[in-house]
């Protein structure tokens, strides 16, 4: 199977989510946040926190292909994830998503009641939580999980209005947040030991914290401020002033318990020889595979969400988001046998690991590039036609090939699929540096492309990457078919009421027909 415009149009027409019930309300209760149904969307005035381990890719590189080291890394990620959940609960912060070792959380208390002074309280509790996280990772986690490289901690925070929706199916919880503040929090993440905030947050910080932040870069038009090395153990006076009690022993014991509950020999790692069934994965049943990892991000969608002036517009956007998401899933899964593993807001992470085996390396690369072209084709030629007045939504894709490690962490119903590997991080980097309608591939993927017409579309970009802009199957088809027409190699055949086209028709008559027109008498 491969991408086909007619099939894609039929799919989108059949299920454009026009009847999908969406209920937009303000976030007023914790229960609303925890038990969000797929039809529910909550508008939140809140602070978004991204907590990341900026050197995690180094730890992944350390593990390489060594199973025992990979087990240690899985255990570290699992323990960190569990403690992150406990820390969030302790500080009454909402958990949106824990992606591998990156946490996306939401400080939404006290609830917004049109009282501007409450924002200062939310900002204060969010920054306190950021310092707690930094303290925990540096002082406790790295000490207890000493069989992996020391993790760093970086936190990005941005406040504003965003919309929280649950896109998880079959009773699973998979929250996403739509809004520019959520994206900004991820964008402003700094290096190890940093906490980065926006100017709006800086303005309402208590004085004892204000003095710790310094002016940093302007990101997406927003002035940022950054503090480095804030830890309760190093700044006890700050903890006292803010009324924070940091119980290191309690968190150490908790971490040791989680570590001991997951002995290394209980973690089974096997190579994927058939398509990975994600539903069967647990922290004790992990898969590793040679794969092409890809990140596809919707460009422009966040802007529409931010510009939405009323609930009707938000409802329409959420429906469109579901429509785009469903189509992307079908392109990846049904058209090309790929796997969508994770959603990060309006970005999807997937892999293509079939066909298996070292001999199929180039096939996987070509097929993964086809996935990227298929996603661009669906966006530009099908979905945009259904987006009526919102035609400025495009997709930016990054791809890299290498080893990927796939597993699921967390409890049943709240499990999250994680996928890591040096090239997974590379694919993410390639996507981040891409703009609308671009496909950016690593040089290794580029080198495997055998179709000269596809290869020609990719131009050398910065670093070891190649980028194609506006590459879709219709564009590629027209180029190939025009060349074939001029060379006498174009052919068409009709089977089961459908015309099939080839650009490599044999010159002797058979199944394929060509036309040699005549000027007539």
């Amino acid at each position, binding site marked *: 199977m491969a991408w086909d415009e*007619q099939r894609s149009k039929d799919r989108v027409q059949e299920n454009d989510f026009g009847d999908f019930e969406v209920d937009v309300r303000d976030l007023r209760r914790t229960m609303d946040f925890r038990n969000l149904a797929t039809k529910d969307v909550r508008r939140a005035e809140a602070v978004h926190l991204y907590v990341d381990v900026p050197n995690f890719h180094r730890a992944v590189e350390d593990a390489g292909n060594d199973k025992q080291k990979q087990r240690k890394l899985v255990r570290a990620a699992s323990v960190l994830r569990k403690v992150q959940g406990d820390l969030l609960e302790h500080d009454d912060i909402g958990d949106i998503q824990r992606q591998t070792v990156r946490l996306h959380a939401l400080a939404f208390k006290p609830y917004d009641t049109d009282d501007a002074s409450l924002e200062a309280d939310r900002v204060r509790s969010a920054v306190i939580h950021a310092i707690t996280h930094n303290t925990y990772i540096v002082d406790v986690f790295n000490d207890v999980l000493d069989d992996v490289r020391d993790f760093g901690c970086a936190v990005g925070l941005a406040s504003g209005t965003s919309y929280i929706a649950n896109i998880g199916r079959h009773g699973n919880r998979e929250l996403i947040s739509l809004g520019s503040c959520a994206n900004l929090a991820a964008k402003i993440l700094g290096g190890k030991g940093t906490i980065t905030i926006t100017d709006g947050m800086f303005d309402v910080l208590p004085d004892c914290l204000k003095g710790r932040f310094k002016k940093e870069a302007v990101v997406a038009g927003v002035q940022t401020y950054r503090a480095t090395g804030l830890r309760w153990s190093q700044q006890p006076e700050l903890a006292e002033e803010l009324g924070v009690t940091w119980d290191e022993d309690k968190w150490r014991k908790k971490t040791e318990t989680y570590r001991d509950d997951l002995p290394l020999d209980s973690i089974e790692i096997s190579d994927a020889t058939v398509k990975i069934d994600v539903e069967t994965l647990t922290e004790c049943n992990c898969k590793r595979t040679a794969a092409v990892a890809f990140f596809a991000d919707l460009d422009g969608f966040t802007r529409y969400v931010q510009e939405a002036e009323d609930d009707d517009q938000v409802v329409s956007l959420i429906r469109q988001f579901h429509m785009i998401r469903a189509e992307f899933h079908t392109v990846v899964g049904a058209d090309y046998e790929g796997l969508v593993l994770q959603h990060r807001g309006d970005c999807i992470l997937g892999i293509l690991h079939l066909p298996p085996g070292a001999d199929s390396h180039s096939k996987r690369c070509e097929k993964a590039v086809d996935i990227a072209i298929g996603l661009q084709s669906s966006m530009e030629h099908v979905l945009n036609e259904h987006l009526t007045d919102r035609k400025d939504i495009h997709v930016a894709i990054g791809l890299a090939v290498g080893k990927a490690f796939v597993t699921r962490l967390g409890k049943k119903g709240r499990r999250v699929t994680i996928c890591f590997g040096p090239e997974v991080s590379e694919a993410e980097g390639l996507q981040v540096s891409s703009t609308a309608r671009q496909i950016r591939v690593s040089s290794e993927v580029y080198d495997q492309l055998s179709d000269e017409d596809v290869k020609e579309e990719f131009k050398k970009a910065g670093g070891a990457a190649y980028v194609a802009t506006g590459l879709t199957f219709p564009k590629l088809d027209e180029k190939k078919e025009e060349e074939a*027409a001029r060379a006498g190699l174009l052919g068409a*055949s*009709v089977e089961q009421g459908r015309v*099939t086209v*080839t650009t490599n028709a044999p010159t002797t008559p058979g199944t394929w027909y060509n*036309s040699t*027109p005549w000027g*007539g008498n």
Partner: protein
Amino acid sequence: MHWYERQPERWRAEQRIASQLLDGSCNGIDADGVAFVEGVFHVRSGHGHVYESVTIRIEYPHSFPDRGQPPRVVLLSHRDRWEVCADAHIYSDWSLCLFVPGETPVDFSRADSLTGLFAVLHTFLFKEHLFQRALKRQLVTGVVPEWPGESRSHGRTGVAEAVREIGKVGRNEPCPCGSGRKFKVCCMRLIGR
């Protein structure tokens, strides 16, 4: 008796194939007793992108399917967009010159020959799409467009080219030009054997 009366099964087969490949297909017999099918034909790329959606009418000659006279394909749409000229292989009555009739690989004696005609038509219309685009560009660039791919010369020269390509045409066989007459009394005298 008309061919569709003599061979009602064949006529039904033509209608069935047309209904599969034409959107909004209809068929009938006109006042002159000519059987026709018509509808919208989508010219698509290998991945299903629609280059053009053209409304066509396929008219069957009285002698069909004998005597080397293929159906006539007439363009009903695009008359406001496309230009009629000999190099475009569109006659002034908007019928399409798909091939030298005697040279076509489509065997019209077969019940499924219409699928072959649609396949030929598909490649022709894609090339026409390219040619008409080049015609429009000519106004700006001044570059005279060429038909993309092989085509036969105009008039009997083209028939001669086709005869050379075919290799041999018997004196009593239908003339490759599609006149319905024998070769010996039609083009043979003019182009030589």
